[in-house]
């Protein structure tokens, strides 16, 4: 085990950046959700890495957080995609910039 913590963190940062850029740049709502999932996964990677490199990994704190976070990710995907389907049914589109009824 020679890979230092910094490498994992940088990988997570890059993954987060890619997810964020995708969520900001793509028009399709499904891809925006996919970007969000990538960001969530980047955060998970951080948790696992910090847990592994902490001085008392026997506590399992980071691991537990990731398990819960995976469950939340699944719930988020289910609800988000259901919303996309429902919106698509009403407005015949899945493009986020067309979902703009809620504005001032």
């Amino acid at each position, binding site marked *: *085990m*020679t*890979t*230092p*913590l*910094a*490498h*994992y*963190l*940088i*990988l997570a*940062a*890059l*993954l*987060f*950046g*890619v*997810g964020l*850029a*995708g969520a*900001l*740049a*793509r*028009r399709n709502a*499904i891809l925006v959700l*996919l*970007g969000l*999932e*990538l960001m969530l*996964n980047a955060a*998970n*990677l951080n948790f*696992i890495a910090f*847990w*592994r*490199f*902490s001085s008392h*990994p026997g506590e*399992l704190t980071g*691991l*537990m957080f*990731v*398990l*819960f976070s*995976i*469950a*939340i*990710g*699944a*719930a988020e*995907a*289910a*609800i988000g*995609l*259901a919303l*996309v*389907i*429902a919106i*698509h049914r009403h407005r015949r589109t*899945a493009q986020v910039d067309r979902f703009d009824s809620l504005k001032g």
Partner: protein
Amino acid sequence: MLNEIAFLLCATLTLAGAVAAMTLRNLVHCALCAAGAFAGLAAIYLQLDAEFAGFAQLLVYVGAVAILIVFTILLTRGAEIQPAASPSWRMGVTVGALVTACLIGSIAASPGLHGSPPQTVQAPVKRIGEQLMNQYVMPLEAIGLLLTAALLGAVIIALREPPKPEPPAP
């Protein structure tokens, strides 16, 4: 050394999958690439001795979320109509790059990230189960509730609404 190579392979798979998922034109390709990225991430978890989390990641993201996304793509006919990038995609990519730069900068600025980890780590499944049932039992219950709510909510939201009854003729 071997370890470093494995890490680089997994990291490349993950990042390449993520970048492809965010850039490809065909939505189905995007979803499959994302599944690849999730699988790569699971491999990295394994490398970090988090077997349980790794397999859970594989089961949930590759087995469930990816399939869900694929289904949604087919249901919204996203596979046929190709949406262009968002009109303001340059700004989005800029912001993403900025955030990444900030993060990497802060990582670089932090001291003490280069030490080696504790040699052994004890995370047997039995201990995870015990912790879930003792210390983390309330979060576990909350997650159970959340998943149930999400299940019902997703079904209700995506349910085809019944046709509205005709208003009575005046």
